[in-house]
């Protein structure tokens, strides 16, 4: 069985890379077959689409932080609970409580599940500009 610390190190590396806008490290955390499931649509998002989305975030959002991270490793993966804070260009800071479950193969994230409450989207996305 893989050592827990290796799995936790992967988890830390993944979220640190997003915070530090280090796309190459982020990309290396995903296995070739990686898919990401999100609770708002219950669909598996392909690796390329997910990376493109994260890359767009790195380019357009001022800052992303994952705070109050609590990680546990289990056989074949990890679960992290955190609160994500995104500072948008407008200065608005959005936040959301998230539970992220990563299934690991060969030291990379092979399948991930992200649970959050889309019902609290107003706390997460910036208010829409009103049309003039």
């Amino acid at each position: 069985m893989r050592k827990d610390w290796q799995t936790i190190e992967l988890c830390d590396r993944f979220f640190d890379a997003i915070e530090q806008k280090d796309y190459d490290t982020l990309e290396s955390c995903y296995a070739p077959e990686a898919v990401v499931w999100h609770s708002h649509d219950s669909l598996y998002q392909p690796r390329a689409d997910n990376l493109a989305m994260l890359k767009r975030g790195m380019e357009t959002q001022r800052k992303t932080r994952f705070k109050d991270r609590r990680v546990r490793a289990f056989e074949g993966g990890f679960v992290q609970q955190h609160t994500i804070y995104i500072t948008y260009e407008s200065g608005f800071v959005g936040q959301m409580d998230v539970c992220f479950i990563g299934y690991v193969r060969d030291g990379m994230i092979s399948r991930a599940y992200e649970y959050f409450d889309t019902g609290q989207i107003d706390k997460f996305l910036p208010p829409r500009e009103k049309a003039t």
Partner: protein
Amino acid sequence: MTVDTTHRRLCHALFDALEQGDVDGVDACYAPDMTMWINVSGETITREANLEAVDKGRGLHRRRLYNDRNINSFDDGFVVQYTTHVVTHDGTEVPLSACLVAEVRDARITKLFEYLDTTQFRSRARSKKARSKKTESERTESRQPEPT
């Protein structure tokens, strides 16, 4: 018995008790100082409040199921991804994908963290009746955060 087995058993015991509305069974899974946090409200409730909600919740629906239990255990707890099916009194069936993280000590749950996506409830309701009018039970449920 390994820790993995202990924690899996505990998870099943909790979900089975909740399905059956067995408040004593749920109580037996909890440590005396147990608390529960729900993402929907961001609040932490006490053991007593949780058991009260379980007791009251029995009448809210016709049936609540905890299916597709995908459990992963670690030394001090477990995480379970599951589909909870709520069957309301008018027959409406609503499946929700949810996730629960539990901290465990001495084979009892000390902390629960529940993650629900409340928009799933609204978008996934499959009603046998016309959707134009909300039933009383739907109005009640959309107001209250669901305990596990």
